[in-house]
């Protein structure tokens, strides 16, 4: 119940009692309340006019870093006796220093600036509203307003850089890069030997082979190194990400996808990102720093999704990736995914899977018991079998124990070139 109504009821009660009983004392007793109410009305804020400016110290941060938000409120209307302000922020953000709530007196034309420091988990956050409540001196009459000021903050996933990732897609692009192109030409990796042709540098002559043949000289051929198309698929299906008591392995996958895209882009490749969740989130392939920024933004927004339509990987259409390019799937894998992945491989794609180990992850969350141990063993056998089938199909599967950082756990494996058909 509003305070002014509560007080009015009192006053009317006392006035009516005075009239009915014809006793002036009741009316006299009502006077303090009446004056209090009248003063409240007299000093009540008119429709207030506030101007708000908000600035963020940075619009892109990492999960552990801090962001300073500075808000300046200017009163462009009449005096405000009591102004309560609240910068409405996402509940996921944590305030490290300062406060989003303030109570102050703001005379006409004056300004007030406050700042606070926040930090938070990976995500995309919008700072779009500031709640303002102006009251009279006694807090009887309230005027409320939501002030708009649209700022956005992206908290990018944190990752440790990978030095080099060795891939060998069947088809490469025209530009020079670091991936062996299965074509002879300028390069450093040995490709083959052919008969010496006019114009070949004498340095390329293979003297050992030439010595075995009397009539001809033979030259070494080197493999061209080019850039390639890489499609990174981040598996964000709830069925492979959510475990016991709502614990999620997804953050590890996002970090892995960020590290992989960063490494591939650093090598000069054309990289696209595909987030497979409740919908298909596709960041078109591109090169360089701008593409890195696009991918990081997509990863900052990536969420685990639940969808019966995208429960399996069937919608991972080959048309989304350039023919015979490299596909890197970051997924914990389900048995039902086997056929889709084999089909992709069959279409000529080089498929590499970075698979965070869900068995170890969930085992760490469950209380130890014989039943849990037995269940873990059964699931482990199923998973090993699935990985074996995938590897037989020529898919490179790298298991990752998420307790160890990606660069330490799988970095050496990624650098090593695996010969696949």
């Amino acid at each position, binding site marked *: 119940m509003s305070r002014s109504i509560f007080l009015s009821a009192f006053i*009317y009660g006392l*006035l009516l*009692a005075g009239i009915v009983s014809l006793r002036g004392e009741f009316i006299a007793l009502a006077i303090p309340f009446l004056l209090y109410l009248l*003063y409240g009305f007299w000093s009540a804020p008119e429709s207030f006019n506030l101007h708000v400016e908000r600035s963020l110290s940075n619009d892109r941060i990492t999960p552990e870093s801090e962001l300073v938000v500075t808000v300046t409120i200017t009163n462009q209307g009449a005096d405000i006796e009591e102004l309560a302000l609240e910068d409405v922020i996402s509940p996921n953000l944590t305030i490290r220093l300062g406060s989003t709530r*303030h109570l102050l007196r703001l005379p006409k034309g004056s300004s007030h600036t406050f700042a606070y420091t926040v930090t938070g988990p990976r995500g995309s956050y919008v700072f779009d509203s500031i709640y303002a409540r102006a009251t009279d001196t006694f807090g009887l009459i309230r005027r409320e307003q939501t002030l708009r000021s649209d700022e956005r903050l992206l908290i990018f996933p944190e990752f440790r850089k990978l030095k080099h990732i060795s891939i060998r897609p069947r088809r490469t692009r025209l530009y020079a890069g670091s991936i062996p192109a299965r074509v002879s030409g300028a390069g450093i990796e040995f490709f083959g030997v052919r008969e010496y042709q006019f114009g070949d540098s004498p340095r390329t002559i293979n003297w050992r082979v030439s010595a075995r043949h009397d009539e001809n000289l033979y030259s070494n051929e080197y493999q061209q190194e080019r850039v390639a198309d890489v499609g990174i698929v981040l598996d964000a299906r709830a069925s492979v990400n959510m475990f016991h008591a709502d614990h999620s392995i997804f953050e590890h996958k996002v970090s892995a996808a960020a590290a992989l895209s960063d490494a591939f882009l650093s090598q000069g490749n054309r990289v696209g990102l595909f987030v497979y969740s409740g919908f298909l989130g596709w960041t078109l392939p591109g090169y360089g720093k701008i593409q890195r920024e696009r991918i990081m933004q997509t990863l900052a927004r990536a969420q685990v999704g639940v969808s019966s339509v995208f429960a399996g990987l069937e919608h991972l259409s080959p048309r989304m990736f350039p023919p015979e390019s490299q596909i890197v799937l970051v997924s914990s894998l389900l048995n039902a995914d086997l056929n889709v992945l084999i089909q992709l491989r069959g279409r000529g794609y080089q498929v590499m899977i970075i698979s965070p180990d869900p068995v170890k992850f969930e085992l760490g969350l469950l209380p130890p018991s014989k039943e849990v141990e037995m269940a873990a063993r059964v699931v482990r056998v199923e998973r090993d079998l699935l990985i074996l089938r995938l590897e037989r199909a020529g898919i490179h599967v790298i298991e990752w124990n998420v307790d160890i950082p990606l660069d330490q756990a799988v970095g050496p494996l990624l650098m090593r070139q695996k010969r696949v058909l």
Partner: protein
Amino acid sequence: MTLSALLVSIVFASASLAWGYFRSGFGLYAIWILIFGAVWLLAVWRKWNWYSSIALLIYIVVAALGLWFEFNSSWMFAGGMLALFAWDVSDLRRRLYWSAKDDDTRELKRHHLIRISLLALFSFMLAFITLSLRVQFTFEWVAVFVIIALLGLGQLVRWLRR
């Protein structure tokens, strides 16, 4: 500053009403008033903000009953007004929870306490002037009060509908 003002106003409101009742020979009622005062103090300690409105209602009813039974009106007025003061400060303290550590609440509190104190003083004087002015409560006065009451009631209904 506000806590001291609140505690003092609750103690004095309870004490003045209790003393008024006690002096008129209603000692048992005076004890009950003191118990209500103690509960209000407990409510301040336990941060039961809702209690201040109930307490104000109780104190005003007690003061009105005292006036009805023609107890000493000064004590009744003082009790009622200090209860209003306590109710106001209690709400101020609730609103101050919104403030941050670095906000200049000292100035806000000082400003508020000065105004409510001046208002209490002024209304106390006005109430005494009203009581000392003995006018014939004629039909015309009744008519004026009824018109004011009806206009006010209309305003109240309009607020409620909003």
